């Protein structure tokens, strides 16, 4: 069956692995102060991150071995489970950190919105692969709009505007590329924007960030510190673990602002390397997607590529002050168990899709 000859898999797996390693090093380098202050163990986050990375690689292997077409058969089950997880956030199982309830604890603690993202991609891919004929009618798109809308609302109300926005634009981009008309897309876009607007309006902190960025042109403290950290790194950086600035001055330096730490430790070359590796990963996924002749695999892999690239761009734009700061992590690099495992699973699914290619261009 395996007749396709190409380099996509090496360009996918090797950069992914390197990014994982850089992420582990940077999480260690950036979290030591915070870990020491709160857990009296400066390697607290490192040990956990190593554990998550191992699980992430396991997920990659697992999903690359499993035939991705199996996923198509359990779509309703996946949607239902991940929706239950999202609902659980609003119950006692919800875990609140810094004013946002984004995690649930049922035996283990994890972030349902991350799972929801992947599940939605699978759902949309399944939907588009089955309902191609109804593409130009609003009625045809109604089920997917409802499902995505419900997910979107649950995530946005956590509140996690960043992830909700990411899911929204990923979903709309997939529809746009799949050939849905711009008119239909904008009909979906406007209510979503209104929902996001209302949520932002009811959270003064979030509104303030937008006002600061667009109107008063005031630079956010976290972003300002991250620019100082990156700027001080210069071309080559301070060296691995040598930059203490991010540790002390940048909140979430091991998480949302991990790129600032890379800039401080490895300089501009570090950032260039990370972005290059990312381009390899994402464009390999797009390449695999374009070679896939199965509509489900094609849309699913393409969706994964879109989601990863949007997430990375939103993170980079926040860090470099090109966009109001959003609570979005950097894929493969940032600290976080659920996201790393889900991203591992995404790479695994794409690998599985690659394995099914038959060598003919789609």
């Amino acid at each position, binding site marked *: 069956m395996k007749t396709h000859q190409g380099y996509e898999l090496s360009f996918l797996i090797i950069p992914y692995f390197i990014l994982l390693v850089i992420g582990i090093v940077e999480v260690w380098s950036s979290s*030591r*102060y915070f870990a*020491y*202050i709160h857990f009296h163990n*400066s390697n607290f986050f490192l040990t956990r991150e190593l554990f998550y990375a191992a699980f992430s690689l396991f997920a990659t292997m697992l999903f690359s071995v499993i035939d991705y077409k199996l996923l198509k058969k359990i779509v309703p089950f996946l949607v239902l489970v991940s929706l239950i997880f999202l609902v659980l956030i609003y119950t006692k199982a919800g875990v609140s950190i810094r004013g946002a309830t984004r995690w649930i604890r049922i035996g283990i603690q994890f972030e349902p919105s991350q799972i929801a993202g992947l599940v939605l991609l699978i759902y949309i891919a399944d939907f588009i692969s089955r309902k191609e004929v109804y593409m130009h009618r609003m009625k045809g798109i109604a089920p997917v709009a409802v499902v995505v809308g419900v997910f979107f609302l649950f995530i946005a109300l956590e509140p996690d505007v960043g992830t909700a926005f990411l899911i929204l634009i990923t979903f709309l*981009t997939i529809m*746009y*590329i*799949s*050939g849905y008309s711009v008119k239909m897309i904008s009909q979906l876009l406007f209510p979503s924007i209104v929902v996001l607007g209302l949520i932002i309006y009811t959270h003064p902190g979030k509104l303030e960030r937008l006002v600061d960025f667009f109107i008063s042109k005031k630079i956010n403290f976290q972003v300002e510190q991250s*620019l*100082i*950290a*990156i*700027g*001080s*790194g*210069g*071309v080559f950086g301070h060296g691995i673990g040598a930059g*203490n*600035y991010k*540790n*002390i*001055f940048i909140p979430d330096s091991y998480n949302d602002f991990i790129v600032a730490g890379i*800039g401080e430790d490895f*300089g*501009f070359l570090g*950032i*260039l390397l990370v*972005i290059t590796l*990312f*381009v390899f990963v*994402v464009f390999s996924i*797009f390449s695999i997607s*374009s070679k896939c002749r199965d509509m489900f695999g*094609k849309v699913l892999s*393409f969706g994964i590529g*879109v989601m990863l*690239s949007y997430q990375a*761009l939103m993170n*980079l*734009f926040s860090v*470099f*002050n*090109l966009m109001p700061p959003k609570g979005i992590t950097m894929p493969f690099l940032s600290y976080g168990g659920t996201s790393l495992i889900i991203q591992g699973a995404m790479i695994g699914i794409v690998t599985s899709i690659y394995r099914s290619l038959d060598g003919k261009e789609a």
Partner: protein
Amino acid sequence: MNKVRYNFFLFVISLALLSVLIKAYNVAVIKHTYYSKLYINNITKTIYKKGKRGCIYSEKNKNLAIDYPSYDLFVDPKYYLENKKNNGEDYTKSVERFIDKISTAVNIKPEYIKKVIEDNKSSRFVLIKRDIPPNVFQNISESFMPRSFGFIKKYKRYYPDGEYSAHNIGFCFKNGVGAEGLERYYEQYLKPEIIKGDVPLDLYRYRFAPIPKNGDDLYISINKDIQDYVHIKLKEAVEKHDADGGMVVVLNPYDGSVVAMDSYPFYDNNQYRKYDYTSIKNRAVANVFEPGSVFKLITLSAALDSSAFKENEIIYCEGGSWKLKNKTIHDVHKFGWLGFRDVFINSSNIGSAKIALSMGKKLFYQYLSKFGFGKKTGIDTISESKGIVKDIFSIGDVDLATMAFGQGISVTAIQLAKSYAVIANGGYAVRPHFLEYIKDKNGVVYKYKIDKKRILKKESVAEIKGILEDVITKGTGKRAYIEGYTTAGKTGTAQIPKKGTYDTKEYIASFAGFAPVEHPSLVVVVSIINPKKGGFYGGVVAAPVFADIMKFSLHYYAVKKDK
């Protein structure tokens, strides 16, 4: 899938990534210096750290001056009130307990502390109590201490020996700069260096102050035990004779190191502000006085060393009164013809004058210069006087004649001690000094170099020693006799001139000498200023003090008896 839309999407994604890269390049490479400056400003802080001033140690490594830690207690009223508002009842209670504890420990009222806090509500720093000693500090800081209170550590100077060696050691001003004595002279070694450091925050947000550099320690030749004894004896003598002042110098004749030095009036250098400068002045180096007969040593040495006179010559002493031009010179006892030795043993002024006159002023001044009169001895302490020696071109016979027995010339006690050391050590002029060596934490950084120069012939020194020994056994210095040791010395009683005349009945009674004669251990010079009770002659007032000090010191050093 729509190929056009797909390519458009890829184009947008690439463009976005490119814009990130451009921005990253702008921040990290182009604006690198700008951000580096901000980075350093935020992460580093310039810290100044001052260490301890060096200590001063006596000959047997006993402390004469130390820096001990002392603490100032302060409060941050703003933080205190905020904390009180935010924290519960328990916290407030424990803070109150702390306030009670410190108020009993440092002896202030708790109401005072609360009033200070209430009066300075928005202030961030108010001193409550200065100079808390280390044991009290330890007692307070060991238990619970609210973060709104704190201590500032600093060092205070303390002199364990107090007034016993105050004139030698001196003291420091309140700002820690040496003001007097060795503290001032060796300021550049004793003073702690202020270390400046740009210290970045480390990984755990700590900032380690630079390690301060302490001042160097001074090891001086003062022997604390002899110094204390000298102090007691000087005080006794001054009180016994109701004198105005006094000076004692105990010198090691071989290397010139000062074993003890004291002067009256005394002062306590721990409380120097209670005294005026007349007490603080180190009279042993700063006071100039007409020495009287102790100065005949110079006439004697010059006469013998230059071979102008022989020991067996005789001199006519005019029966006690001799008129030279417009000046009449008197002797205490009336003498006719005296042998050269007897002139000095009986301390004849007329005899000494005649010896000096026959030598001539050129030769006499040559020896004055060799002994170092009219020049500072170069002792390592401040405010040394050089004495007063009239210009050689302006003096006549009368001046030369009076100078021969110590009138019309002014000297310091340390200069006298130096001259007697020349005889004691066999003819060498040595520079008197306190310093032995200076040590920093790595070891000796400076060792005193002995300055020694031969000025008298060996043979003449032996003859002079013999004459000085006879002064004590046969002449005016009988009260300087020490049981078991041969002693040599010379008495002196000088009138204090007032307004150019010698009409007053004020005297300076002196005795200078050394023992044992053959290999002298120490030179001791004693001068008592204006004794008003119990006699005024050097042989009566100063010689017993000399004997006491010399006896104590010889026993202290376990010098072998030679008699």
